[in-house]
């Protein structure tokens, strides 16, 4: 999927970053079909900072982050374009992550269990 436009929450968002190695930012990615995905791009250091902030040994469950080394315009564009490949699968995955209804996972789980049973029957026959 081609990326039409990459934008941020404010025009000067990248200039306001105090530490490009310890930050996370909402990035709006407009695809060629006109749909706009919202992804959170964060640095690896920022993940540790969030754990320190919450005083936990793990990152709390939540929306997935696209991890980058530094919060620069070039690296962000590189990451977004990579995630937009394969018809934007992973980009949409990171966009909808956390918003998918649990019923979808239950359905997927059921389908998977059914598939496993069929495989066992084939093995046994």
């Amino acid at each position, binding site marked *: 999927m081609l990326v039409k436009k990459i934008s941020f*929450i*404010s025009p*000067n*968002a990248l*200039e*306001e*970053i*105090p530490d490009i190695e310890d*930050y*996370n*930012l*909402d990035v*709006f990615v407009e695809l060629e079909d006109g749909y*706009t995905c*919202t992804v*959170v791009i*964060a640095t690896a250091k920022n993940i540790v900072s*969030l754990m320190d*902030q919450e005083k936990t040994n793990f990152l*709390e*469950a*939540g*929306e997935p982050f696209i991890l980058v080394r530094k919060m620069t315009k070039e690296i962000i564009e590189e990451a977004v374009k990579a995630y937009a490949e394969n018809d934007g699968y992973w980009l949409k995955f990171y*966009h*909808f992550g*956390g*918003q998918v209804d649990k019923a979808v996972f239950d359905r997927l789980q059921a389908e998977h269990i059914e598939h496993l049973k069929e495989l066992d029957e084939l093995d046994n026959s």
Partner: protein
Amino acid sequence: MKILRYVVWLCILSAIFFIAYKECKEKGFRRVKNSFKIAFIMAAIGTGLISINVVKFPEDTSSISHERLYSEEYNSLEANNSDTVILAKASGSSSSGSHGRAQPSGFSGQSSGSRPPSKATGTPKYGGFARPKFGQPPGGGPGKPANFIPDEDVASQEVPKKKEEKKLDNVEQSQPPKKKERSKSTEQCESVDENQNREGETKEIVHRIKENSALVREAEIAGRDLDAQRSLNNMVEQLGLGNRKPGIGTRHVFKDVYELRGRGGARVYYREVGGRIEILAKSVKSNQNKVIKILKKIY
């Protein structure tokens, strides 16, 4: 004491009389009379029975006249004695009583305060009745009054206060002005940091989402997910307690509008006006862009 004084006076009187009698060039009764006058006065002065205040004499040197004012003690002496008060006027005569009595001009004409001691043993020196000028203390005599403060001391006392005031003014002026030569982006960054760092200040929260139907609708969409709704409520609560960095970080959207970002994609938009926090909108990632566009239109 008075008797002793009179005895001493008589002795001095007689001694001076004989001396004056010998020196006097006149003859007969006048000789005796003048001698007695001189002896009488000098003896009285010498024994302190008479206190003399000399009035400033005129500049006319042709006639030298001295006016002497006698103290009350002399008047009492007059009362006790039948002797008359003598105002001696030395008009160019060689009488020793008035000779050399030129007094400095600074003397006042009134008798007050400092008088020579009346004891016979502590007779003042000749001219000891002279009083010092006001503010110029004598060797041991009376000087300036206790409350007198010369003008120089008053001025010096006022100066340090003025200096202190000047110092305060200089300190205030020397403080550099804040945030004058900085770019807009850095100001925004700093304002974001200041906003984030202000913690522990509980503030009143005002919900203004209901003022716009579009924002109400978008907030309802965001609240459909129970986890997102829980995250939204938690962030608003944290904001009211003074925590401006709940979740994964607060970001500046535009003007004075900021965005609280939860871990599960929940977003709360607020601004601070008049010491109160106004909740402007709520969203999730799916309607985040739309909510921001509506907010930019309204605010």
